[in-house]
């Protein structure tokens, strides 16, 4: 028993001595280690904010910041903020450090690590130096790396927004899509936040787009910056728009026999005439262009199917991509409403200038060619080449 107590006593004594030595060592090394760690962290921060004197990490829990922001540092002399972001392109992975000056301009941006296929976009961060939010928005993405550089650009925008939030400004950090959906819901609360974009077959004066509530509660018309809520069964502040929508939804479309006309391209598969004298056409677009006089799509064998409504005098009312099987994340962008809506209100002469899809020139060309064939078809239909 005594032997055991002695053994334990020796071990305890040795542990105590070692603990004392460790405490002494820690006393000596802790400040140096802390200084080294701060210097290492500052090195990365200084790269994007060379003017910075010192940085302190910001407690992000006190702020509502964009989801891409992972860390935020405040320059101690008030020169601005450095924001660390993790963003997505083809997949999660780009870690970007962005410095933002006190006056809201990018002081520098670097990509610290990435799982993506970075080549010339590796240096992309440099183009943002000295730019404010508007200039960043106007910065071009790199063709062939649209998704990656687009994500990079969005991250920089998030960094600028974050710096504003951290600086105490009241900034909306929701995504544009979230903001849009919130606006729809606010314009027509009875719609319970679920809306579907309507395909317009008639010209609704001043109206850019109409969304119908999925539960049938009514419509929201986008009039410039305004979201006009129109309840189905209640008086509305927008009677003219309400009547126009009602007329459009209640009118019947008349089939047009395309075989009765010569010269209409075979890819224009159907045409209907509206009560207002407009046309609704469906056309097939070939994403991979034209080979040997015909069009084909080697990847999927499927065409892009586009629905276009157009006035008799050749002005697009609405454009919708019905189906597509283009390359994911590249040509597939043609299926997004953000792309098809670029054709709204355009005439034949405007089509070549419509902004294409970065990195998907063939898809863009195929799409535009199909739209131009609709113009040609309407001209024939109106010209009476029967």
């Amino acid at each position, binding site marked *: 028993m005594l032997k055991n107590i002695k053994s*334990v006593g020796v071990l305890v004594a*040795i542990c105590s001595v070692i*603990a004392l030595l*460790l405490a002494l060592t*820690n006393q000596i090394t802790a400040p*140096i280690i802390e200084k080294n760690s701060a210097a*290492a962290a500052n090195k990365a921060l200084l790269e994007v904010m060379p003017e910075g004197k010192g940085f302190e990490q910001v407690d992000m829990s006190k702020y509502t910041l964009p989801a891409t922001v992972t860390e935020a540092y405040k320059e101690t002399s008030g020169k601005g903020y450095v924001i660390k972001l993790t963003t997505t392109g083809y997949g999660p992975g780009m870690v970007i450090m962005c410095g933002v000056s006190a006056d809201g301009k990018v002081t520098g941006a670097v990509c610290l690590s990435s799982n993506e296929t970075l080549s010339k976009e590796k240096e992309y961060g440099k183009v943002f130096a000295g730019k404010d939010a508007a200039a960043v928005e106007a910065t071009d993405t790199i063709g062939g790396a649209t998704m990656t550089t687009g994500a990079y650009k969005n991250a920089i925008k998030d960094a600028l927004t974050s710096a504003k939030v951290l600086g105490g400004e009241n900034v909306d950090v929701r995504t544009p899509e979230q903001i849009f959906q919130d606006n729809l819901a606010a314009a027509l609360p009875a719609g319970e936040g679920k809306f579907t974009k309507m395909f317009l077959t008639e010209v609704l004066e001043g109206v850019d787009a109409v969304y119908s509530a999925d539960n049938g509660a009514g419509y929201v018309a986008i009039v410039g910056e305004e979201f006009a809520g129109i309840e189905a069964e209640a008086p509305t502040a927008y009677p003219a728009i309400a009547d126009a929508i009602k007329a459009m939804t209640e009118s019947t479309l008349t089939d047009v026999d395309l075989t009765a006309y010569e010269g209409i391209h075979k890819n224009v598969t159907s045409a209907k005439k509206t009560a207002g004298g407009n046309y609704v056409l469906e056309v097939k677009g070939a994403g991979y262009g034209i080979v040997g006089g015909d069009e084909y799509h080697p990847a999927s064998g499927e065409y892009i199917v586009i629905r276009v409504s157009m006035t008799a005098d050749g002005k697009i009312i609405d454009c919708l991509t019905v189906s597509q099987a283009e390359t994911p994340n590249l040509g597939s962008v043609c299926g997004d409403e953000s792309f098809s809506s670029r054709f709204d209100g355009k005439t034949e002469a405007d089509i070549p200038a419509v902004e294409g899809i970065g990195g998907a020139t063939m898809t863009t060309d195929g799409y535009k060619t199909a739209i131009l064939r609709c113009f040609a078809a309407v001209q024939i239909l109106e010209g009476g080449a029967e």
Partner: protein
Amino acid sequence: MRKDSNLDVLTKGILKENPVLVLILGTCPTLATTGTVDGAVGMGLAALAVLLCSNVFISLLRNIIPETMRIPCYIVIIAGFVTIVKLFVQAYLPDLYATLGVYLDLITVNCIILGRAEMFASKNPVVKSALDGIGMGIGFTIALTAMAIVREVLGNATFAGNSIAFLEPYKISFLTKAPGGLLVYGLLIALVYVITKGKAPLKKSFSCAGCPNAATCHTACTEKGDEQ
């Protein structure tokens, strides 16, 4: 039994009883940290410091530490000194600290350290234990450095991070990988065998009696000894 002089104690670890190339101890850090000369030298010197301190401390306490409690005591002492060395490296050599990573902590379980504590420091006076620690540490460092030179120069066409341009087209990248490290390790063991043939205590070292833990492993050692 012949008593080794202080010089013998200091020098035997360098070649004759080199812990890595003759006693085949510390294989894990040997393979892991010999990709670069910097890392190998750093690991060798860190292990040397821990060996020296733990040998001296254990030798000082050899008459106090009870037989039944010696392994926990040795581990506490070794782990303590490893942490002390780690903190100093982290403070004063941050680049080396980043290079060695977790292997610095793993010196705690490096069998060279526990082996010398059990085999030598617990039975010998302070000066000889210190010399043993220094000698074994130097031997460990030399072995690691030699291996790292082969792997880095031939595998990566660099020496301590400096490019060797004329070797660039001929570099054998395989050597920088783990299997390449094992190959170089084997070749160096063979080389030391050739150099020390008849001199190194190979039979003893490779048999059960040569195990650094032989003294603590009475049953196994007796059984193995009987077999021989």
